[in-house]
């Protein structure tokens, strides 16, 4: 494969990952609804995971699995970022679950999800 193709992929893939992260950060910073803030935080998670997995790719690499179809000569992509992302996904799930349970708890007390309607929460 030629290098111009990879130059194009460079911008497209890293740009997409950073864009996804920024979208999530925008939602977390601007939106008023607590549910949207939690969704924004989990979108940041997804963008970061995409970024880390992309970092481990090597040109012409195949999946790091030594199955019977592997011919023994092809290069393999870096498996370490994939293992780290597996951890990060699970931790992200835990964080989202606890955040959503806190949102449910706030709903029980205030009967609203909008942070500017909750009276004793000023910033």
């Amino acid at each position, binding site marked *: 494969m030629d290098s111009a193709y*990879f130059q194009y*992929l*460079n*911008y497209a*893939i*890293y*740009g997409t*990952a*950073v*864009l996804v*992260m*920024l979208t999530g*950060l*925008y939602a977390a*910073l*601007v939106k008023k609804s607590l549910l949207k803030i939690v969704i924004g935080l989990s979108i940041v998670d997804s963008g970061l995971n995409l*970024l880390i997995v*992309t*970092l481990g*790719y*090597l*040109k012409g*690499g195949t*999946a*790091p*699995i*030594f*199955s*019977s179809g592997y011919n023994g000569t092809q290069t*393999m992509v*870096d*498996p*370490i970022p*994939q*293992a780290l992302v*597996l*951890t990060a*996904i*699970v*931790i992200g*799930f*835990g*964080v989202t*679950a*606890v955040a*959503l*349970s*806190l949102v*449910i*708890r706030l*709903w*029980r*007390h205030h009967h609203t999800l909008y942070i500017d309607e909750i009276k004793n929460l000023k910033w």
Partner: protein
Amino acid sequence: MKKILVLLLLAVVGFYLAGTFFDIGFGNSHFVKNDAIKPVKDIYLQQTVQELKVSNAVTSIVVNFRGFDTLGEVTVLFLSVTALGSILYKKRHHVGERSVLFSASSIVTSGSKLLFPAIVLLGAYVFIHGHLSPGGGFQGGVIIATGFLLMLLAYENYSVSHNGLSIVESLAGITFVGVGLLGFMNGGTFLQNFLPTGELNNLFSGGIIPIIYIAVGFKVAAELTGVIYTVLNEKGEQNG
């Protein structure tokens, strides 16, 4: 005003973040600086095939090279489930009422009864073959939990025993730590392999890796089912 400020901030952050990664480049082997030092990746891949006899390199990293890390990860998951239960704690007579908007149609109920065993079987397949094919304990556990989610959505009075879930979860956690401690008794370190590694691409290969991943699969399935059950039984109208 606030939106413009935020957009400005995000533009600066995005510019420098994207610039850094554009400089690194896509698909280059940027972790190698000279030929004398091998990258960690090559050593891991080499040991995965030659010593551990595991086909899936990601599994061997998650369970063997970074096994202690995975134990911490499982602990974090357990902790978040416990926190969820304690935050959403309610008095006893409120437990058991489910907030149902509308009941499921007969197509959904009979279809999910048909699909549930197949989903659980797929999940068990994924975590038993975690060292041979893509997948593993976490993925298989999540698949099994989706089966329970389907049943909970289809049947209003379908209930999962909390005691059963915590027994499965505790036994799986004890298996993980116990297998790790058995490494000490065989004269090694924590989580060291003490079983015969077998042959590459066989189901019975990889030493302790399949045992640990099966334990992780049961643990994740029980924990996620517990999360789904706790949240579905949450009723919004009452003052807690």
